[in-house]
């Protein structure tokens, strides 16, 4: 005997598959939508349907964009540096870098990082497209902004090895102390990185 109707259980299961949501939060969200008299449920359903149907990947940098456009706003813009390209793992990374307000070049979104354990090899990422883009010329610097994890490091090394022969400058985002943080509270690993990556002052 099922205590919960199938349709309710189906939504709970769908929510639990999302990152950061456990079975308990999933039930709470489901029962909130069930009980709620406003149109929160309908709005969510509509937004979800549109999410896939009205977005597409930019054919140049593979960032997300509204469907039907030829290129994303950043690739289309005239006001950006055309000789610098920043390689990131996910569209979220583009958003945070844009919010920092300190970068004015182009992007390339790989949609992941190399991880043989999870079966993610170069052909599963937007690598080929990156190499083609860079080989076409025009860039003087590549900023590899993959995550400071082992997989991010391996991905960065892979890109450098593939493009080594081109006359382009490679750089990697610096690692170290968070702004506004206190030295005393930094963990030893971050501190070690910050020390070895210290800058002339």
């Amino acid at each position, binding site marked *: 005997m099922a205590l919960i109707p199938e349709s309710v259980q189906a939504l709970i299961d769908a929510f639990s598959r999302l990152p950061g949501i456990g079975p308990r939060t999933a039930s709470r969200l489901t029962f909130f939508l069930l009980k709620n008299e406003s149109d929160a449920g309908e709005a969510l359903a509509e937004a979800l349907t549109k999410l896939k149907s009205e977005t597409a990947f930019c054919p140049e940098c593979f960032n997300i964009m509204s469907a039907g456009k030829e290129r994303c706003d950043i690739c289309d813009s005239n006001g950006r540096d055309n000789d610098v390209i920043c390689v990131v793992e996910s569209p979220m990374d583009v958003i945070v870098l844009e919010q920092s307000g300190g970068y004015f070049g182009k992007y390339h979104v790989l949609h992941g990082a190399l*991880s043989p354990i999870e079966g993610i090899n170069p052909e599963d990422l937007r690598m080929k497209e990156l190499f083609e883009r860079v080989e076409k010329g025009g860039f003087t610097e590549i900023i590899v902004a993959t995550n400071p994890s082992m997989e991010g490091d391996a991905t960065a090394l892979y890109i450098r090895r593939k493009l080594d022969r081109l006359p382009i400058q490679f750089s990697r985002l610096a690692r170290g102390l968070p702004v506004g943080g206190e030295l005393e509270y930094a963990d030893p690993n971050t501190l070690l990185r910050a020390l070895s990556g210290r800058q002339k002052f």
Partner: protein
Amino acid sequence: MRLKHLSLTNFRSYARLESEIPDGILLLKGGNAVGKTSILESLFYCATFSTTLAQQDRHLIRFEAESEDPAVARIVVVYDVEGKERKLEIRLILEGAADVRRFRKEILAEGRKTNAQSAIGQFPAVLFLPHMTEIIDGAPGERRRYLNILLSQSIPGYARALSQYSRAVLQRNALLRTLGERGGDPGQLAYWDELLAAHGAFLTVHRAQAIQTLASLAQSALLRLTDGREILSMRYVPALRTFDETFFQDSASSGAAKEAERIAAISSLIRTNLEADRALDIRRGVSTVGPHRDEMRVMTNAVDVGTYGSRGQVRTTLLALKFAEVDWLKDKTGTIPLLLLDETFSELDASRRRELMRLLNGGGQAIVTTTDLINFSADFLGRQTVWEIRGGIMDKNPERVPMDSNSAAGDALT
């Protein structure tokens, strides 16, 4: 270091334990399966953040509490280092409905959340368990584990390098299998090789240096334990071709520059080895060279103890290694580690027991478990604290006289 207070909640057989810990040597007496070793396990957990006795960390949560949601086991130690009071708390948490139980641990140093790699080494301890003789006569993995636990506690960056290295090996092996099954460009291995070489060289260099120092420390401990009859030596056998032992012989020139030079040299050696074995590795689907395959041998009077030693010899040699660990940690961390001995006395002969009591008296704080007091001299017992454990309860004022005080063994030591 001086441990002052231990508090356990839902840990192994303990629902709740709050206890001040006396300075000097504390003897925990009790029958089998009353919870003596659990106390040692809880304290060693504070040093290593991984279980020594259970199969998995989640099994440390008390069985009766395990089905609660969330089920939480807690270890809290309050201790003194150089007159400064410190507190370390560990929470082992199992949560979620029965079919999706998730385990995680939280480590809090001075009440602030931290991670194992940062907190390791703050509470240095040395543990002796009877089955640890495997370090000497068991599989090579036991000896790597021994070195890893010790060096993680004492060398900054070792725990991190080890976890990065192990992850890189897993990634490289996964790629080897993909290449073996589906083919592809073996050049892809290059960047994993680079990571293996960088982290692996750090591990290799620190292991080589540590084994050299440990051997000389253990040698003097074993000489004392055997009245000068047995001379201990140790040999590091890294899984690398053309590894030059003499490279590490001039231990006089230590220094950061020398160390960086050694790491760079070993790093390129690992890379050459990996490149040379590439085809073989792809066929086998595993990485065959590097510190995850290292070996270390222990010899007394130039004879391999692991292969030819008697049971008693293995045990005495292990004890010497444990005392070397104490000295090593004292030197590296600047504080005397807590010594935890489980049933150590029962299989030693009278003269070795006497020497061990002498070593304990001359050392720092120690907690020693025993099923009975028969193996200890009256003089030794007179100076130490003796508590009795019965079914998870500590009796801090037990009968002190050895159970069978007129037995031959008892007399021999008075």
